[in-house]
């Protein structure tokens, strides 16, 4: 492990990579701050830029964007009560009331320190957990992987669906269907191409991400421009107040941060859970733990109430790298985008990654530390200036997002069919978003589609076409039983709610 850490340090500490982390954190903060634009959009917009770099540098840039976007999201939560990302919704519960009391600077500083501590602590957990989990996952076989992918897809559908599990499952199926377009990987037989040569290689992953996130976000923002429910209520962006945290507040944070980082990291590791659930759980747990007097302050500007979700959502970001780096199965929509980008670089994440490409594996972990330090340096003194970006007019913002999306696709293929296809998918995605059909399950399914088919093929061929492989191994059976429990529970919940109504 020491050798790996040294490899990671030597890769991450090159001038180019430090610059990439800085750029990533900076742009991530700006994009994540804009309401409606989350880390997935931020990373998707960065993909074309990474083409010119080696995989380690590209991934370091994307990781920087990820942390930056999560932190940026909390800024808009605190100042506008309009969370840039779902993972920072819980931040607004106490951050926004604090800002309304004229302590916006303090709220932002608490968020910055909590994010820093949460991210740094969880990077330490990741350092120790990832290699051991990689060793364990070497014993995984095709049926286990197949079952794990089903569990991951079901879990992300369950957690991201806001109570609309069936909608999320439909998006999972749609993602898998989109992934099945093009040549079959083994026989080279074309499927669902309708004799269109442009579809022979399948639909590009970047195209789907750009269309369902960047472009459809932009279209949704224009569409809902006059919607009174989405209008932001502004706190003064010019007078944020002091960013100093006093001793009493610091003492509260010392207790909150360690426990919230553990819960955030563990939730982040679970497939599909991610920063949103981590932040809500940490908030809920903190509320149950604190004294009755402190409990009263929750929702009215509590330091613990702000620090807990901020620590947890950053810790969950690092946690979500664990399944991606060790199993090759992304734990969240954002890491699914990063997995797709890695595959684009020709790197196959999984248990062997840290043996075959140690420089990538370790440099990502090392760059997390650098990223956290840079985020803190960047955010604390620059908070008053960065906050003004929230005032960027949408008239400029939307065309620029569309421009980055279309350019991203154009430089990949130099083909206008892909631009039309992206616009088509974006229009459908925008319409589906209006009716709360979640997009992260679609992306995760699209990324996993090929791997899932491959593992099912291997499992079925090894068992001579029999489905016995599902219960031959205890591990496979356990994973599938968990999946079935999630499905049955959510369908039952849907029916029970109505009966109650």
């Amino acid at each position: 492990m020491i050798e790996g850490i040294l490899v990671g340090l030597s890769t991450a500490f090159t001038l180019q990579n430090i610059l990439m982390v800085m750029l990533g954190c900076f742009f991530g903060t700006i994009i994540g701050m804009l309401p409606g634009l989350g880390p997935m959009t931020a990373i998707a917009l960065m993909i074309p830029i990474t083409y010119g770099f080696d995989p380690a540098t590209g991934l370091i840039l994307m990781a920087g964007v990820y942390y930056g976007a999560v932190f940026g999201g909390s800024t808009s939560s605190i100042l506008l009560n309009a969370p840039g990302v779902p993972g920072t919704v819980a931040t607004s519960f106490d951050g926004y009331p604090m800002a309304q009391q004229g302590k916006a600077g303090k709220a932002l500083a608490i968020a910055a320190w909590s994010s820093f501590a949460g991210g740094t602590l969880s990077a330490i957990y990741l350092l120790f957990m990832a290699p051991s989990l990689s060793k364990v996952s070497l014993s995984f076989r095709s049926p286990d992987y197949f079952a794990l992918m089903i569990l991951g897809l079901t879990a992300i559908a369950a957690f991201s669906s806001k109570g609309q599990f069936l909608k999320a499952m439909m998006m999972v199926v749609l993602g898998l269907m989109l992934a099945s377009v093009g040549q079959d990987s083994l026989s080279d037989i074309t499927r669902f191409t309708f004799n269109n040569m442009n579809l022979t290689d399948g639909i590009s992953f970047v195209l789907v991400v750009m269309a369902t996130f960047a472009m459809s976000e932009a279209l949704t923002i224009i569409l809902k421009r006059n919607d009174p429910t989405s209008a932001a209520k502004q706190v003064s962006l010019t007078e944020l107040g002091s960013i100093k945290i006093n001793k009493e507040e610091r003492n509260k944070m010392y207790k909150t941060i360690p426990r919230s980082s553990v819960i955030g990291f563990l939730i982040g590791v679970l497939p599909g859970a991610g920063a949103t659930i981590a932040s809500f759980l940490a908030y809920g747990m903190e509320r149950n733990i604190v004294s009755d007097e402190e409990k009263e302050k929750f929702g009215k500007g509590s330091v613990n109430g702000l620090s807990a979700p901020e620590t947890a959502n950053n810790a969950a970001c690092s946690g979500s790298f664990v399944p991606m780096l060790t199993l090759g199965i992304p734990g969240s929509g954002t890491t699914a985008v990063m997995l797709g980008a890695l595959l684009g670089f020709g790197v196959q994440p999984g248990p062997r990654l840290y043996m075959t490409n140690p420089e990538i594996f370790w440099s990502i972990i090392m760059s997390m530390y650098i990223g956290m330090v840079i985020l803190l340096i960047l955010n604390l003194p620059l908070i008053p200036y960065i906050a003004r970006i929230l005032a960027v007019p949408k008239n400029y913002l939307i065309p620029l997002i569309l421009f980055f999306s279309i350019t991203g696709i154009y430089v990949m293929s130099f083909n206008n069919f892909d631009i039309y296809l992206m616009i088509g998918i974006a229009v459908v995605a925008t319409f589906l978003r209006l009716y709360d059909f979640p997009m992260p399950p679609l992306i995760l399914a699209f990324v996993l589609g090929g791997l899932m088919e491959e593992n099912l093929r291997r499992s079925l061929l090894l068992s001579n076409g029999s489905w016995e492989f599902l219960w031959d191994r205890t591990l496979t059976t356990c994973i599938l039983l968990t999946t079935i429990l999630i499905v049955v529970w959510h369908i039952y919940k849907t029916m029970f709610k109505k009966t109650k109504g």
Partner: protein
Amino acid sequence: MNINTTKVISLLFFIFSVFYLYTAYQIQVFAFDENAPFNARTFPIYLGYAGLFFSGLKVILPDPNTIKVQHKTLEYKKTAILIVIAIIYGATILKVGYFLTTSLFLFSSYFYLGERRWTLMFLLSFPFVAAFMYLLHGVLDIYLRDPFLQSIGVMG
């Protein structure tokens, strides 16, 4: 059973799954692969049935969280115009070239979204695209074909 837009979308997805499943059964596989435990059509067939299952359930089961979209407040016209501009951009980018089409796309988008600060609109279109193009072409070595710039002798 209430008919709402979500159910209509689910019904459309059901019909789409029927079409997908039908197309999956039509996938031509090699003769020796026809009876293999797994061939090119196996996975798509399962997906087709999964689509039928989930969308069917969504249509049949009660919907406790009915989504009501306020269509009157939505900006359909501006969104549609922007989509049309993007389509025109896609149609002309290969023939005219990256620089001019992208700059015009940005300029016209700012205009249709209601912007009238001409200097800022200009700065955030033509010079901005030139700088971005330099970053892609000059720094990152990503080739961008541009017949317009070639015709005026700016690009080799």
